[in-house]
């Protein structure tokens, strides 16, 4: 019988993988993928908590629905930016995009 802790640890691992990708990948699309991983880990958390703490009202699942919607929106906008970047600068590597430097 998988307990809440199992799910939480799985979620933590997945989240950390996502963060690692976020911090170290150069490709913008890769970074977006990493973010998806992190979303998913959060969703696992929500659903697990919903299942083990408050199973009757399904609040966690509803939040997950919202998160998925937001993730979709994020993906759409993020990819659009990537396309634009590519078109204007001919690159998709995020470490070259350092215009925020003073």
């Amino acid at each position: 019988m998988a307990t809440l802790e199992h799910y939480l640890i799985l979620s933590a691992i997945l989240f950390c993988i996502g963060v690692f990708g976020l911090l170290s990948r150069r490709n913008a699309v890769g970074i977006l993928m990493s973010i998806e991983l992190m979303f998913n880990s959060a969703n696992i958390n929500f659903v697990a908590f919903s299942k083990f703490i408050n199973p009757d009202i399904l609040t966690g699942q509803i939040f997950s629905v919202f998160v998925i919607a937001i993730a979709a929106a994020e993906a759409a906008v993020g990819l659009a930016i990537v396309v634009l970047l590519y078109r204007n600068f001919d690159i998709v590597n995020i470490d070259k995009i350092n215009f925020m430097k003073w």
Partner: protein
Amino acid sequence: MIEYSYIIAFLPLLSYALIVFFFSKSNKMASGVAITAVLTSFVLSTIVLFEVLADHGPHIFEYEWISMPGLELPLSIYIDPLAAVMLMVVTIVSSCVHIYSIGYMHGDPRFPRFFSFLSLFTFSMLGLVISGTFFATFIFWELVGLTSYLLIGFWFEKKVAADAGKKAFITTKIGDLGFLAGLLILYAAAGTLNYEDIYHLIEHHQIPVIILSAAGILLFCGAVGKSAQFPLHVWLPDAMEGPTPVSALIHAATMVAAGVYLTARIMSIIVVSESAAITIAYIGGFTALMAASIGLVQNDIKRVLAYSTVSQLGYMILALGCGGYTAGTFHLMTHAFFKALLFLGAGSVIHAAHTNDIQEMGGLAKKMPITSKTFFIASLSIAGIFPLSGFWSKDEIFLSILEEGHIGLLILAIVVAGMTAFYMFRLCFLTFTGEPRNKEKYEHAHESPNTMTYPLIFLAILAVCAGWVGIPWLHHGYASFVYHHHPHHPHPNYMLMLIGTIVAVGGIYLAYLMYYKRSIDPVAMGARFKGIYTFLFNKWWFDELYMGTVIRFVYWFMEVLYRFDQGVIDWFVNFVGRFGLFNARFWQTFDVYVIDGAVNGAGIVTRWFAGGLRKIQTGAVQNYAFVVFLGVVLFILFRFM
């Protein structure tokens, strides 16, 4: 005609303008225009004289000039017998001098200019004569001063001439200060400067005597300057540097007489104010004596005549101070003729001999018969020999002094008469008789041209006859024409006439002995009275005195003030500026090193930090995210663990 008498004055002005604007290149036209103008003035003056003889006047014509609240300054014409006589004197002498100048100034490169100045002078002098207010008198008074300046300095390339002109102008200007102050006092007291109104007020005792005394003496200061009375007489001998016709016209016959004329005009004041009268009389007397004493020993022919002029003017002033209105003005007239004649004669001599020094002349009578004869006539006249004009006018003066009771002044006047006779004949004998002392100059000497001799002859006639109008037995003569208040006919005093004649003859005889017969050696005399001789020869050291005191003081004071201006006032201004600058520098330093230092310090520190920290800001988002997670880790670590 009398209401148009200003035309008399304006004709020469017109001539001046014509010469300046149109004939400045043409000698003939310039002299022609000037002489025409002055002769016309002469004719008109004669007409005026006859009209005044018919109606003594005064004839007054007023013209508005300045009129505002608190200031009414009209100009007016005031023709009374004195003015009419003066008009005659001025136009006659001026005409003679104009004609004479054709010959005398012949060949001068500035010939037209000379005539233009003569015209301007004639205008000013005639204007002065016909002025009806003290104010107008003052205006023309200054104008004659200007023309005198211009004419003395006519040969301005000579430094002495230029200096003399300046000296004349400034010295008379000092006297004019008094004139101006007198005008102000009079105006403040009377509210008018018209002769007629002031006479009227004085008659009705509406002006306090003390003010009248002050005003009288101050106005007389003007006369002192213009008529070269002590202590402002120093300019007149120097003024002899001008061309000789100028000396004759301005510095003998007319302008210098303006002071006397003015003194006559303030007769009403003098009569009222005892102190003013005494002051004037003594100044006149002293001047007469002093100038005559200097004249005794001078060697420059023109300077002798100049001192003689000063002395004679002193005589007139003395007479006026003693209330001798008729006497003073009478002598003014006769003197004008014979002194002009003397000067013109001297000019003729100088023209011939090319020197002013009588010690270099001698025996010129043979070469210049007309000049020498007329000169002798004039000398006799001035010495006061019966029946020449000088005799009558001098006698009048003695009489008026006697009537006033100033015995001391009378004796002084008689002594001066003797001195006058002596120095005039010293001059005559040295110039015209004896052996020529400078052969070369003698050889070149010749009689002057007709343009010069005719005026001499004409004036010689006047020098003889002009006095006859004032013969005491003549009841409708000068005294009943020119008078103050009412005609005054003093009884002829035969005693005085006799004394005067004796003194004059004595003076002439002494001169005859010393300079003709040579029975008394003048050089030995000079050596014997060396102290007095030096004193007189150096003109009582007046020039040196003034030079050492007044002039030196002025020069010293101007330097002191200029130093003060630069060293104190301007220094202070610059000091304020420099102080400001210093302040600015100080605060700039403060600003740079302290205030700005603090600011910059903050900046430097910041930049120093930033230099390190900017490396953190890579612009790469992932670096930032890295830090975020580092923070998260640390947060959890320290918060919960």
